[in-house]
């Protein structure tokens, strides 16, 4: 007994030593930058970008308030908050659209013969072979005034003038939807792929109709995949920067653009850093709520 537990302890020690390099990498490239951003958010902006090493809550205060130009009093201002809320709304609509399209797609894939499934997974991942910028510009070409959508609709005589899709909210949501759809499909697919389709038969046998089988049997079992997919789409959609920049034409700012703006044109690094921290905190709160609601199911695909 004693010898055995000695070996186990020895094993654990070795394992811990073996994981050390990866822990170090995560610390260096994950945690340290985060700490730097956090530190910057509590400092004062320097004139030409960068920060003055001086403690200040100014950045956080200016998320909700504006200083009056003349008497320096704080006035509530919803400008940033609105951008923040709009971002949340866009991300939410994009996530729901992904779910609506992604679920039937994943279901279709999972019900193909086993030999064909890998082919489908491959097809779904093809967009990832090119980078996000390229894909976003491709979307731009598709939805612009003389792009195939408008050209097609006009050729069919459905519309007289091109629909102004580009540089609209619709364009941004469509871009987010397209960019992150695979993140929704793949986790759902993997949760349905292992699904025992005899359960569907058992459902029909026990007097359930089609939609009842979907609601009471398929959806609950696919739920972990749906949750994972939603989280995986919502988080990058929430922090998206390229998509609103290109498809929104700068008219419809999302939080990602706002952060970029502070670091570049506005040269207010602490404000940008503070926005980043607020964004992160928001996502973190959502995740914690999710995990507390579904302790075991959350984040398993």
């Amino acid at each position, binding site marked *: 007994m004693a010898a055995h537990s000695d070996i186990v302890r020895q094993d654990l020690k070795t394992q811990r030593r073996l994981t050390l390099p990866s822990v170090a990498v995560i610390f260096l490239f994950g945690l340290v930058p985060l700490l730097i951003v956090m530190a910057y958010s509590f400092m004062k902006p320097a004139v030409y970008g960068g920060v003055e090493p001086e403690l200040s809550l100014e950045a956080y205060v200016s998320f909700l308030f504006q200083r009056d130009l003349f008497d320096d009093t704080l006035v509530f201002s919803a400008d940033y908050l609105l951008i923040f809320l709009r971002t949340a709304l866009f991300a939410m609509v994009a996530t729901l659209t992904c779910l609506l399209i992604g679920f039937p797609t994943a279901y279709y894939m999972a019900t193909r013969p086993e030999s064909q499934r890998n082919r489908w997974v491959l097809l779904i991942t093809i967009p990832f072979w090119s980078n996000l910028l390229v894909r976003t510009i491709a979307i731009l070409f598709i939805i612009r005034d003389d792009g195939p959508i408008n050209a097609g609709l006009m050729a069919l005589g459905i519309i007289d003038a091109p629909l102004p899709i580009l540089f609209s909210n619709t364009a941004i949501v469509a871009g987010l939807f397209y960019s992150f759809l695979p993140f929704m499909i793949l986790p759902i697919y993997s949760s349905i792929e292992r699904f*025992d389709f*005899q*359960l569907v*038969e*058992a*459902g*029909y*046998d*026990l*007097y*359930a*109709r089609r939609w*009842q089988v979907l609601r*009471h*049997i398929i959806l*609950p*079992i696919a739920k972990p995949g749906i949750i994972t997919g939603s989280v995986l789409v919502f988080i990058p959609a929430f922090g998206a920067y390229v998509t609103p920049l290109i498809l929104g034409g700068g008219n419809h700012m999302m939080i990602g653009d706002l952060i970029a703006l502070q670091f570049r044109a506005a040269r207010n690094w602490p404000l940008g850093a503070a926005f980043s921290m607020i964004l992160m905190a928001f996502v973190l709160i959502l995740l914690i709520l999710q995990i507390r609601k579904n302790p075991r199911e959350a984040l398993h695909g």
Partner: protein
Amino acid sequence: MRQSVRQEAAQTGRGGALSVEAVTKWFGTYRALDAVSLEIRSNEFFTLLGPSGCGKTTLLRMIAGFESSSEGRILLDGNPISSLPPYERPINTVFQSYALFPHMTVAANVGFGLKMQGRAEAEIADTVREMLRLVQLDHLAERKVAQLSGGQQQRVALARALAPRPKVLLLDEPLSALDLKLRQAMQIELKRLQRELGISFVFVTHDQEEALTMSDRIAVMSEGRLLQVGSPEDIYERPVNRFVADFIGETNFIEGTLDKTGSVFTTRTGAKLRVGKQGDADAGEATLAIRPEQLHLVKSAKQNTLPGAIESVVYFGTDSHVYVRCDGGLNLVVREQNSRGGVSALREGQPIHVEVPADTSRILKG
């Protein structure tokens, strides 16, 4: 107070009668069922028996509504049901792999059918409680099904299929995943439930012993065709052909010819055996079939014996199987009661004679 399920069933005797009329099923170019016709009576324990791949599951799935028939039709109490989807047939299935809903508790599984039928909450709760008591699982109602043993899952599957009170219950090898002890207990349990609830059971198995002990009637199938339908006694004592005789229990086959009178059988080695009058057997090439327990070992040759030598003796508790090599390469198995004595005195290679009683041997065509 609601009537108990048992009383209600006993009063109405609701077990459905099924007619399967010339049902044929093609899978592409493969014919899984070939013009199968069956009558399953109300409140009957009916068993489909046959080797793997003979089409038992296919037939069951067609009765349940998961598979459509290529030709023929199925009627329940005289009404055609072939075009109804499964959820409109008052027929439930106990799946071989149980197919319990993993995300639900035991109680939710059992109540699922009732819920889908739109029954009232209180009625569902009552019935679930009663069903769980019936299968002796009332203490596990709130467990998730993954936390149950195989035998317990089996009972949940049974309770779930019985709860909506179907007219017919289909069971596809429900006991095959259980170990021997549990299987025997469940056999008795199933039989009891069927009698108490008054539901027609269609039971699929490839275990002939299970079929013999449980069934009111048995249908023996092979390669998509129905070979024989009858009581366990019919099937065991009066198999219609060599396949059935071979499949149900152990049988010795002796090749030879039957004379014109139909009462004398000549083996390949020329030995003459008197056989009981066979109604339907023709003269000519024939096979004599006889069960091991109907053969007897005798010390010296007399009428209706075949000479041979002991090859081996296998002890089986109450009886022993004695393997005898007869002349002409014929091997026979004789089952002797150990209580009769004398079996333990048998030695390998010892000359012996096997008596083939005329009244228990059967002549089969083919």
